[in-house]
């Protein structure tokens, strides 16, 4: 939960779990293939680096200029050498190509029994929609040991879906669907990062990927993931965090992408068409559901629309929470 004066409640601060020196822990069935390819190419590179730089350092020492009258070699070509250092690297890079291709193709084709989740990216929020209608913002909950296929699209600009521990990445593009799949091999919390630049909140566009045991996943999915038996303002605080409202709206009066919510309720606000509007319940409700209907002067109309995702009782809870921000 968020302390009232928090400036930027970022959804996920899960660290990326370290595996080897270079790579994060491998937590999907695809990851070992990628890591294998990584190790092969790394040793190829180490070999060539030592060969080239070692030779260079040796020559630098051996053929340092002793006198201005040094006589240097006139040998200026060798067809055999040229053929050798064209063909041998060619064979090696072709091998690398095939190793890389294999891992890539595995990620492209999801198993036919995959569980499908709709992923929506928008500035700066990830939303996951499950087949039974459960909507989960900023938290992707998946079962361990089952292939999961993401069907992804963006509502505004291009984003990209990246989970380091799974070794998968795919752009999320407006106007078309892209997909990627994974099968997580270990329960735990991981970080999903947006890796296509999308503006001011780009680096806060994180989500938590929570891998749970299949039974726990089933239970969570059936409950819809929310406890409705608590005071509205308290519930609103949870929704505020869940939907990452704090990325753009501060609670301490500081200016972010959107207006601060501190002392907002019942204040007179000037809109960008010059009209002055009182920020009462109806204004707040409209601004949450159809944010671009009225835009406060000096701000851009970039807030997502929530008319299809939030239910009435959720909006009530959020308004109750905003009222408390004095």
């Amino acid at each position, binding site marked *: 939960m968020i302390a009232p004066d928090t400036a930027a409640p970022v959804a996920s601060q899960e660290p990326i779990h*370290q595996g080897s020196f270079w790579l994060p822990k491998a937590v999907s069935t695809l990851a070992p293939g990628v890591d294998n390819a990584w190790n092969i190419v790394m040793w190829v590179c180490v070999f060539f680096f030592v060969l080239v730089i070692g030779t260079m350092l040796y020559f630098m020492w051996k053929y340092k200029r002793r006198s201005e009258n040094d006589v240097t070699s006139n040998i200026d070509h060798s067809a055999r050498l040229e053929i050798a250092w064209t063909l041998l690297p060619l064979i090696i890079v072709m091998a*690398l190509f095939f190793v890389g291709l294999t891992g890539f193709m595995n990620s492209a084709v999801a198993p036919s029994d995959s569980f499908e989740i709709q992923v929506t990216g928008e500035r700066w929020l990830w939303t996951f929609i499950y087949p039974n209608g459960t909507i989960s913002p900023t938290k992707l909950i998946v079962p361990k040991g089952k292939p999961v296929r993401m069907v992804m699209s963006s509502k505004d600009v*291009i984003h990209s879906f990246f989970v380091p521990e799974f070794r998968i990445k795919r752009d999320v593009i407006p106007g078309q669907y892209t997909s990627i799949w994974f099968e997580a091999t270990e329960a735990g919390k991981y970080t999903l990062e947006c890796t296509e630049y999308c503006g001011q909140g*780009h680096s806060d566009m994180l989500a938590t990927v929570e891998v749970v045991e299949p039974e726990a996943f089933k239970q969570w999915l059936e409950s819809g993931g929310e406890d409705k038996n608590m005071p509205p303002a308290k519930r609103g605080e949870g929704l505020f965090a869940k939907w990452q409202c704090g990325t753009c709206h501060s609670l301490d009066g500081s200016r972010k992408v959107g207006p601060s919510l501190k002392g907002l309720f019942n204040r007179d606000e000037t809109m960008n068409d010059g009209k002055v509007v009182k920020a009462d319940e109806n204004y707040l409700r409209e601004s949450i559901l159809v944010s671009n209907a009225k835009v406060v002067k000096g701000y851009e109309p970039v807030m997502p629309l929530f008319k299809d995702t939030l239910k009435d009782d959720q909006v009530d809870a959020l308004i109750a929470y905003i009222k408390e921000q004095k």
Partner: protein
Amino acid sequence: MAQAVADSPIPEQSGTNYINAQKGILSWLLTVDHKRIGLMYLASTIIAFALGGFFALMLRLELLTPKRTIMDAATYNQAFTLHGAVMVFLFIIPAVPGAIGNFVLPIMLGAKDVAFPKLNLLSLYLYWTGALFTLSSLVTGGLDTGWTFYVPYSATTGGAVVKVTLGVFILGFSSILTGLNFIVTVHKLRAPGVSWFRLPLLVWALYATSVVQILATPVLGITLVLLMMERVLHIGIFDPALGGDPVLFQHFFWFYSHPAVYIMILPGMGIISEIISVHAKRRIFGYKAIAFSSMAIALIGFLVWGHHMFVAGQSHMAATIFSFLTFLVAIPSGVKVFNWLLTLWRGSIKYTTPMLFALSFMFLFTIGGLTGLFCGMLSVDMHIHDTYFVVAHFHYVMMGGTVIAFVGGLHHWWPKMTGKMYGEKLGALSCALVFIGFNATFFTQFILGSRGMPRRYYNYLDQFQPLHQFSTVGSWVIGLGFIVMAYNLLASLTSGARAPANPWGGKSLEWQTASPPITENFEVTPKVTHGPYDFSPEHQ
């Protein structure tokens, strides 16, 4: 004297040269002398480099802490956009051809000037105009799209997108005209005896570069015009909200911008061929292999643009083909490195400042090239795409490669350009600082990237802070290195020793005329009887 005619001795300082031949600001602004135009390019691109470098230092400073350090997210986004745009369009692309190429290419051919001297001046004016448009965004609201202008972000964001794309569009014409000029010059203005295989390898490299500039730049121009129309007229080519395709923009953009990577690196490779041969006093190894590999890189370079889009919306079939072709382009680059290596073999290596930069280049470019193999592998790229690994990779190629080659070339031809010698000790110091600082800054970023740190992030996870701090400290060492370098070169202008005509013992034509050269380069058009790398004793 291998190349110039034996019966015309090198004229030592004749009193007048291209710098003091005419006086007054107008004699510079209206000049058609390729050397004066080269110097003006040099000054302009170095100012651009300083500006881009300033942005880089500010970015690194911001990244000292995971949250806000010195600027807000919006400013950070503008800073990395301008760092990229200024470095790519105002520095790396024009610097080597515009400054060094303009100065030495005609002299290397034994020509009096380029084929179209007035067109050459027009290129410079177009560069200035484009630069003004690009930099005007600094005072009129900034640009926050990244230097790649990806749609639909660039079609919708507030900010100076139209102004900057117009600037880059104009810069494109400057680049095309320079390429055209160089191609005609190489074909038509070679002195008697300068056959194609007696061209210095820098000329081959600039020739290959010019081909790419002429063929690829118009595609960028068209793409940017479409982007401007998208913003102003909402015609719906790229923006999906209007029925367009954002991935199409990426294809168009990289169809230019990948070949542009070779516009950036090929001239640098040409400089390295010159420096290594001259300062090891040894005939270049594999002349034809190096020359043809430049052409091979230029041609294959047109066919690999899709490797920027392995995880974008491109089909898996396309990704496969582009990965295959990308590995092919590694081969000619490798051929060059191996031939440079063998040029050191049984040479006589003198550790002058230019040679130290050339050896630094070998080290850094080898790392840059090899790490490209990671990025070319489809499955590995899925993990490192758009992370700091890629940032480190292209900085090793672009900065460790091109920028180091450029400053190496600057030190190599500085005595020729200015008639002054700089201090070798400070030269070596600046090279060492830049080399150490560079590796501290960017090798760290390979580790950051492979561990999962995405690029263009203003905030980052706490676990990455130690590596980010190390990288930032490295950037200060680079900055210090460039300050020492600037001091050393500028001080040489007032207090440097007078440069002899041929301080390094080079054999190509630019060393067979005075330092600095006279207005039309040679008293008598030289007749050439040997190759440019003939260091055999009978020609000493």
